[in-house]
């Protein structure tokens, strides 16, 4: 039984430390996978986060018939890992732009297919941190959808909630996050 499987079982049994241990493992695996893929692909190639997370799951956990609970923990970790990867990349790119320095690509410069502007990504990530402090589960939903690219149905399955529930959660979360981002920007403030 792999480390990840053990950790997942512990997380399922309610060990709060397990999730913290899971994240670095998943993060490392994602980076490793991505690096492998990048090494074998033509330059400028972008990776598919959704496929990447699925593959990481298969590699780390293996069996398809794993209980969904375990999968929820895993995907939560993966979503967080993917968010970090994306944020790192966005920050680095901003640093390059703002500093006027030269674009330097190495294995760490993973080109993840991300269509949204970097500053938006950063803003959402920041708002999401605040939201997670208030409502962890809804924040998980947003991460799964936003950073892993799961559909509402897939995310609902991972989180073990019904699709209508996930849908209601999504509306509220989106409203909350948008309002928060407006506030940060100091633009159109709430009345």
């Amino acid at each position, binding site marked *: 039984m792999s480390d990840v499987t053990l950790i997942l079982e512990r997380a399922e049994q309610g060990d709060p430390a397990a999730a913290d241990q899971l994240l670095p493992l998943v993060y490392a695996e994602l980076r490793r996978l991505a690096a492998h893929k990048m090494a074998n*692909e033509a330059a400028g190639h972008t990776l598919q986060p959704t496929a990447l997370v699925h593959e990481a799951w298969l590699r780390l956990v293996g069996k*398809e018939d794993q209980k969904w609970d375990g999968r929820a923990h895993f995907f939560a970790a993966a979503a967080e890992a993917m968010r970090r990867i994306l944020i790192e990349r966005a920050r680095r790119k901003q640093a390059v732009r703002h500093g006027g320095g030269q674009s330097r690509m190495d294995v760490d410069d993973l080109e993840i297919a991300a269509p949204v502007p970097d500053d938006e990504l950063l803003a959402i990530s920041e708002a999401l941190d605040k939201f997670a402090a208030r409502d962890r589960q809804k924040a998980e939903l947003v991460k799964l959808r936003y950073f892993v690219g799961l559909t509402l149905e897939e995310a609902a399955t991972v989180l073990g909630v019904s699709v209508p529930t996930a849908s209601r959660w999504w509306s509220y979360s989106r409203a909350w996050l948008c*309002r928060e981002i407006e506030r940060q920007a100091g633009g159109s403030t709430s009345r």
Partner: protein
Amino acid sequence: MSDAEQREEAVFEAALQLHGAQRGAYLDQACAGDVVLRERIEGLLGALERAGGLLDEPAVTREQASHAVLIPPTAQPGDHIGSYKLLQQIGEGGCGVVYMAEQTQPVRRRVALKILKLGMDTKQVIARFEAERQALALMDHPNIAKVLDAGSTDTGRPYFVMELVRGVKITEFCDENRLPMRQRLELFIQVCQAIQHAHQKGIIHRDLKPSNILVTVNDGVPLPKVIDFGIAKATTGQSLTDKTVFTAFEQFIGTPAYMSPEQAMMTSLDIDTRTDIYSLGVLLYELLTGKTPFEARELLQVGFDEMRRTIREKEPARPSTRLSTMVEGELTTAAKRRHTEAPKLINFVRGDLDWIVMKCLEKDRSQRYETANGLAMDLQRHLNSEPVVACPPSAAYRFRKLLRRNKLAFIAVGAVAVALVVGLAVALWQYTDKRRAYDRAVAAEGEQSRLRRQADREASKSRHVATFLEEMLKGVGPSVALGRDTKILRELLDQTDGRIARELMDEADVAIELRDVLVQVYLELGDYQRAEALARTNLAQCRAYYGGDHSAVADALERLSQALLQLSRLSESEPLVLEAVSMRRRLAGTNHANYASALGVLASLRRQQGSVAEAESLHREAVICFRNLRQTNSTTFAQALGNLVTALYEGGKFAEAETNQVEALTLLRNLLPGEHPAVGQAMGSLAGIYEARGNFVEAERVQREVLTMNRKLLGENHPDLAKDLNNLAGILESHGRLVEAEGLYRQALALRQQHFGTEHQLVASSMGNLANLLRMEGKLSEAEPLLRDALAIQKRILGPDHPAVSESLNNLSLILYFQQKLAEAEAMMREALTVQRKINEGDHPAVAAMLRNLGRLALDQGKVADAETEFRAAAAMRGRLVGTNHPGYAAALNDLAYVLRVQGKLSEAELQFGNSLNIKKQALGTGPNYQPARLDDLAVGYTQLALTMLTRSNYTDCEVLVREWLELAGRAMPDSWHTFNAHSLLGESLLGQRKFADAEPALQTGYEGMSRKQKEIPAASRPHLEAAIRRLVNLYVAWDKAAPDSGKAEKATEWRQRLTRPESTP
């Protein structure tokens, strides 16, 4: 989460469902003074409204990067993968690279290791492989290379380990060693057996192709080995995400030529053993011909969707056809590689092997071999020269298939599709017959192998024909299917003609047969010019190819004469028909179905020449021939019966026509159960016979049944129903139920307008029908504008020079004529004639009819000399068209004689009336069941001639004539007013001879009878009654002069008084 936060969410969610004032009202109530809550909710809602696309899309995309899968894996010899060491690359295919590798544990051995390209979901691939590993392990067959292991490389790519086979592709092996056909088949049979073994263990290969079937040589004996079992399933049977579809596509690129139709669907995961049978069929095809049914290169060129469509729908050429259509060098090479010569190669493949391959390649897998073993056994039977199971699929099946594929076209095209279907059906029936001949020959094999070969060739030829036609029909586009455009269809036919010339240069016999079917289709379509031209070409080709007597030559002769018959070129047609009949007699004797059919054509000729009696006896002979042959259970026999019925109908023998038509209908109902167009047509004919017998009740009942059947066949609202409505209206019309008929014609018109709008030929023709009925109802002022509208539509759609335009001009002219607008009517009739003459340069029935109409118009306007000119021209043309024995010619002569008499040209008038009468007498024939209309017509002929003779004071001739007439009339129509008129005419001829005593009773009988029957006398013929009185007056005046004071003067006065107050009905 606090209670306040939960409350905030609940109110937010509820408010989100509401809009505008409702939302405001809800918030007023829900927040109930809680200003903070209200502000937060509105903040959230506002933010959402202003969010734009924010968070709408994930930060990451999930589309598959398309080029990722095409990058080959990077592994080098010397690399270690699991417990395998790569030695050298030995192959590269669509989905991966194959290495020879060395296994170190648990045993040291050489293996083949295949690393799949990127784009596969490694874990899934391996999981799927694991699922099948047990089944794979059960396979143990010398012709199957075992799959030993699977795993993933460090870079996450799946790999498979297999038994190492040092061989070459089966196709290369065969070609390089110049393997003769028999050995190729033996090798292929081994492959089938291997596949059978796998199928029995529940394993489907899914990717059979030459590169997966390698041949090794052990001790000089070639041994085929099937490799890659289990890999296709592991790599393609995935749930359908974008990714897997793409993966499947990638696989596809490697092997489209071998992909089965069900695999090409790609949405279907329902693959079974018959998929492998299909691929085996492709392989066999390639082993036989060197080509795949569809060339991979061509498939790829046309694009992905078109490629899939081709595999799913296009019927490939038979292997023998493929060979015979190769360019010279290619064919020679193919033959050389098979250690034989080109003609021998084609002969070897043609027949059994064609059918075996085509059975594997059926689009409908239920029609393929059930098992690989079945295929192997059939090949073995062929090698042993035993009859094979594979045969051209049944005609019925192909027809059903064709119907299914062209459903829309078949239902909607109406006449055109029916024509094509008929053409096709003819081809298929012929082909079924030949197939039966083949079966019979097979049964009596051995001594009759020659017969068998011949039948075999005939059958495969017919199959080719049917396939070709089918292909052609597939091109029928949606516009044709909607019944709006027959142009495309005709283009298609013309193209087919071109294709025949180009593609079948070396297969003259197939070309001839195919062209023959084309001629039939053109005939059905009514394009007789085209049919004639093509039939003429075919006849020439036929004579060149077959030399003297041959059944195909006779076919061609019959076809050409049919076309000529339709074009009313009777004299040209006659020698051809006679040649066909005598050739058939020489070929197969008089006791043969083909002879009977030839008689049918001859009968049609005789009928058109006016020899109805001869036509009838010929058709009767044909029917008897079929009965003697006991071939009375086929549609061909039903058709022969139908022909006889037509002849009987025309000869006025309605009772016999009815009996035969009932037999034909019963037969067709048995042969074609349920609703079927042919049954409907036969019922329609029966309705026509009932109508002619005056049995309007039955006629109406049957015609309504036809309507019901076609409503079922076509649906309530189908435009083709208009035709049935028209026929029903026709029955009611002749029954005098004009109001009902008008309703039906209007219904038909509405149906067509609804489907075709106003600008359509059929709409115009429906308007024409209605206009005609309105004319009969005397609603001339309503009929005229309607027909003018129809004419305008026809001119726009069909152009000014079209037969339908000419017909409408003609009919409109007649409506004007009935309105006594004679000058305008004449102008219009001249226009009609001009149009018709542009269409038909020489003689044509329509031209003759219009000339006659023009004569009538001139006559009514008092232009007697003009009338004579027109009538004379009309009669001459009619004579050339239908022969001088035809009732139609008699009518034309009658017109001419009439105008001659009016002008006082009495001797020629008498001559022409006499000629006319003689024809009518012959046409009447003998026998008790005279047709009433014919008798009336004859009576008119006698009357006219008699009157002319009387005008010329030719009393003795007239007496002889009228006595002859009375003898016949006394038997056939003793109580008709015509007969009493004859008595009166006899009286006058006797009076002329001053035989007063004899004249008196004749004149009195005549007058009394006509007086009694005066209600039956048409208004136009009322003067005959008046003439009868005048004759009596004349009698007594003359008698009084000859014998004064004998009381005749009083009688003269008495009759004269009746003359002054003409017959008021008592």
